[in-house]
């Protein structure tokens, strides 16, 4: 291994500009004569719009234009499309209500887009927005999934019979019911997966420019996948030819899923720039981010696990209500179905599983993918159930898991919920995690804590995730309206340096480093000679972007395919120059050799002759060394790991302190261990944040967002977190050329149940058995008080 190749902890090449303030974000871009947009947003969760009076705003200082939904309708602008159509349990398509970029007739959540004011400055636009007079007729709001399904619930969409988007199922119901019939023990849990607000450090922003000279549009935007935004916006919303629309997503300060989606602001700005004949810019303030970025999670679930008397799993039954919010965001319907129900086997050989999901509309912001997207929700169900089952049966937490793990010689393993796991060694991973967590010494630590009046607990989470959603054909059958491949291009320059164009997008992941490591190692050229380009639809091949921990597994594999093409073409060039048969040319580490001789050419020498083809087989080979590839995976990848959390609870205040957190993850081959560790750290912080701190709350009556700022929405901070103990193990993935599995979401998936299981373990002596996330001090204190008053009675 070289010190910059695959497996080396190369320092992130992008960090120099990020850490010294020289990054180039959307808000850093300004164009001559640009105007600013400010969106008038609904102050109500649910209301009919009687009228909108924009006259005063139009006359306000600096105002260029004010537009409402009527103006968009007059230009026949379409609604925001949904990228995934789920088919319900009866074979019917999900309900798909219209999603106008600016409200038509009704507003359906606090923050819904009502009008846009465009002015010479951001402040003038905002001042004028206060003068837009909207006459609302207030309607009752529905916020929670349980309220949304009630027969007398307010209807979010008047053209639907109720608030149900779909009822979807997976697994064999009859087999599962039969398993429960013969069970010796059934564990039942009611669970809430708390709603989260993404909170990327960079708020969303966009800048749209119409160039009349060439009748073309450019949209700079904070997107994880600029080509998807271009496709959805031009084909479905604005009816523009794709070749006349360029979408650029420059440096982006975090996404976590929330920047996958095509948002109303992007479409409205791109439409408005032509209307006003000037560039239009918008940058969300933090309050807008809270209100209008797609939220995450928000499930209510009843889950049951059937076992024999030895604790062997016989069947699992899961009923979930999932909140879609007011409208279907781009990939929302797939998150709580395809990416959730399929994960319920976890690491276990449960023979029968049935899951039914009811997706509902409510008067809240749209809910869509957020770090993990469906898989954290599934893992939380499975791992809470397994730990609760162990407690009920009096079994050891590790033992119940070992007893039910899919054995390492059973791969490839087909689950009863539609996935085929390629590789894994769950027991070895658990062993490693238990050693690192010093499980052996835990009882001693528990006693020591008790002597200080603190309750200690140990919680396990042995999770699986599915990354690199694929193949496209299967996804299409499941309702995807897009492909799930990735594209890459390797372009050699005559003097031996390389530009890599990738359809993946980096917004914190460090692709400029890891992708360069792969390319430099494969081509045998210094990493300094490799530039990675992403995020501009005019420069990169049509790519699907970055989400679902897919970039190295899918994007990296596309690059591997393109590299193979480069190397094969180089082999022909080398054979010609070295006067040998192509079959006799060996390639290794950037050097072509005639087998068994010392005759050789380096990759840069070959590249040079490809561009200066003086001694070149022009009659059979084109000049140039520039190859692209599209890669469509044959399967998901299946990262898996064992997380062990140790907590200490102050019973007087209910405060939980995470004193140790061990994460041992099998990500297959690892390109850059340092970056992987960083990804795991970030994921764990978010997972612990969900478990202990973060909770998006709407007022159940008014539908107002109560946690609309950092004064009430609790982000995890450094002092909320322990020093993580992170390690990796490796069973290489068999379905991609790099043997990689992906690591971006693992922490956020594995951590929440580990934390809650640890708290419940700590408080078991006090009789606490029910606790929902986030386990805030007040909630934990109440749980202790309720349990102890129950015991007293």
């Amino acid at each position: 291994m070289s010190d910059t190749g695959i497996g080396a902890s190369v320092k992130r090449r992008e960090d120099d500009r990020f850490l010294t303030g020289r990054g180039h974000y959307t808000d850093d871009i300004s164009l001559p004569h640009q105007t600013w947009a400010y969106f008038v947003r609904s102050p109500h969760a649910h209301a009919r719009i009687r009228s909108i009076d924009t006259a005063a705003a139009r006359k306000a200082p600096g105002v260029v234009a004010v537009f409402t939904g009527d103006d968009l309708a007059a230009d026949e602008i379409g609604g925001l499309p949904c990228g995934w159509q789920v088919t319900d349990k009866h074979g019917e398509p999900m309900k798909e209500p219209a999603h106008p970029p600016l409200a038509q007739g009704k507003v359906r959540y606090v923050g819904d887009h009502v009008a846009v004011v465009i002015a010479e400055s951001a402040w003038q636009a905002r001042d004028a927005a206060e003068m837009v007079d909207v006459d609302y007729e207030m309607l009752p709001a529905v916020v929670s999934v349980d309220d949304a399904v009630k027969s007398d619930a307010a209807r979010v969409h008047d053209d639907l019979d109720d608030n149900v988007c779909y009822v979807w199922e997976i697994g064999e119901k009859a087999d599962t019911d039969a398993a429960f019939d013969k069970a010796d023990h059934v564990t039942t849990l009611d669970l809430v997966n708390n709603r989260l607000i993404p909170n990327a450090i960079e708020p969303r922003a966009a800048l749209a420019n119409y160039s009349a000279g060439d009748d073309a549009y450019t949209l700079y935007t904070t997107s994880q996948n600029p080509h998807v935004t271009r496709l959805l916006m031009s084909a479905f919303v604005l009816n523009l030819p794709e070749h006349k629309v360029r979408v650029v997503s420059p440096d982006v300060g975090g996404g976590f899923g929330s920047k996958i989606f095509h948002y109303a602001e992007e479409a409205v700005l791109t439409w408005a720039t032509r209307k006003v004949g000037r560039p239009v810019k918008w940058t969300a303030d933090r309050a807008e981010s809270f209100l209008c970025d797609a939220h995450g999670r928000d499930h209510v679930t009843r889950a049951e696990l059937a076992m024999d008397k030895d604790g062997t799993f016989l069947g699992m039954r899961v009923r979930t209500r999932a909140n879609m919010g007011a409208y279907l965001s781009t990939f929302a319907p797939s998150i709580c179905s395809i990416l959730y129900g399929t994960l319920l086997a976890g690491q276990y050989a449960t023979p029968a599983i049935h899951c039914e999901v009811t997706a509902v509309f409510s008067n809240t912001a749209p809910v869509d993918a957020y770090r993990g997207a469906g898989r954290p929700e599934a893992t939380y169900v499975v791992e809470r159930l397994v730990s609760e089952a162990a407690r009920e049966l009096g079994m050891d937490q590790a033992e119940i898991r070992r007893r039910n793990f899919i054995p390492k010689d059973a791969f490839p393993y087909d689950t009863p919920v539609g996935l085929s796991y390629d590789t894994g060694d769950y027991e070895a991973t658990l062993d490693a995690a238990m050693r690192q967590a010093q499980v052996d010494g835990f009882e001693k630590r528990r006693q020591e804590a008790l002597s200080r009046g603190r309750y200690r607990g140990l919680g396990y989470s042995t999770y699986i995730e599915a990354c690199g959603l694929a193949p496209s054909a299967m996804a299409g059958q499941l309702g995807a309206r897009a492909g799930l491949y990735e594209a890459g291009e390797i372009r050699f320059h005559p003097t031996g340096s390389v530009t890599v164009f990738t359809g993946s997008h980096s917004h914190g992941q460090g692709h400029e480093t890891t992708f360069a490591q792969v390319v430099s190692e494969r081509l045998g050229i210094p990493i300094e000679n490799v530039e990675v380009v992403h995020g501009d639809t005019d420069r990169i091949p049509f790519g699907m972007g970055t989400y679902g921990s897919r970039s190295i597994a899918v994007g990296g594999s596309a690059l591997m395919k393109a590299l193979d093409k480069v190397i094969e073409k180089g082999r022909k060039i080398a054979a010609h120059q070295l006067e040998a048969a192509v079959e006799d040319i060996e390639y290794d580490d950037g050097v072509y050799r005639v087998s068994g001789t010392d005759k050789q050419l380096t990759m840069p020498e070959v590249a040079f002759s490809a561009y200066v083809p003086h001694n070149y087989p022009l009659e059979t080979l084109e000049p140039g060394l520039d190859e692209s590839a599209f890669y469509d995976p044959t399967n998901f990848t299946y990262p898996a790991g064992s997380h062990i959390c140790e907590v200490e609870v102050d019973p007087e205040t209910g405060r939980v302190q995470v004193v140790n957190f061990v994460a041992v993850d099998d990500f297959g081959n690892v390109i850059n261990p340092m970056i992987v560790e960083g990804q795991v750290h970030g994921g764990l912080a978010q997972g612990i944040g969900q478990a202990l701190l973060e909770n998006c709350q709407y007022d159940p009556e008014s539908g107002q967002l109560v946690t609309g700022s950092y004064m009430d929405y609790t982000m995890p901070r450094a002092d909320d977190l322990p020093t993580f103990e992170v390690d990796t193990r490796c069973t290489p993935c068999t379905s991609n050329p790099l043997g990689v599995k992906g690591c971006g979401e693992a922490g956020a998936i594995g951590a929440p149940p580990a934390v809650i299981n640890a708290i419940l373990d700590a408080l078991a002596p006090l009789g606490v058995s029910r606790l929902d996330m986030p386990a805030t001090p007040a909630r934990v204190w109440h749980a202790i008080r309720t349990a102890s008053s129950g015991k007293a009675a």
Partner: protein
Amino acid sequence: MHAFEYHRPEKSADAVSALKKAEDGRFLAGGQSLLPSMKQRLSAPSDLVSLSRVNELRGIKVDGKAVTIGSMTRHAEVADSADVARAIPALAELASNIGDRQVRNLGTIGGSIANDDPSADYPAAVLALNATVVTDRRRIAADDFFVDMFETALEPEELVTAVEFPVPDQAAYAKFEQPASRFALVGVMVARSGSEVRVAVTGAAPSVFRVPEMEKALAKEFKASAIEGINISPDEMMADMHGDADYRAHLVGVMARRAVDAAANR
């Protein structure tokens, strides 16, 4: 933020007269509450009279019996003051844990007590330490200063110039933070001066308040066990998503005992 007139006088008398002339003006001290509320357009004063250049309002003076802190003294200055740490270590410690580093570098003691946020830390210190609030026209006893949520005894255009803290024999502040804002969900300051004990609670109720029952018990015996059985009624407590009234009432007892422990062990 709406447009406003900005004044930056160098004398407190000029500051007061500038505010008197303003239509709907406000003093601007550290701006850690006022400016965010203006940015959110919840507050739109016609004039801001900045006190940042009024040097006579800054500084810490310690004599044997009292610590006097100018109203424009930043939290960080109190936290870092060796004199304060020697005279009333609990006060320096309280200041060192207000908000975050940025807030402490700008926020001021005068701004904090004049704003009288029900969850602010300083009101607990002012009340428990039996401080005197000095203004441009009078001296106000701590017991008379805090009236209700965001409401003090200050008259319109009255300017806090300093706060005088008598040096106690023993004192400590125990704060349980609201997880998101890290304001006090419940903060309890306990101070003993001779045979008198004062217990002041912030965060729990609409305004900072004393707990006479605890004070009496602690006057007899300055030990945490002395207030073990004293329960606070949840009736007057605030309730929000971070803690209902029962929880806050319970925390008053817990934090009071922890403060007494800390003070007794100092």
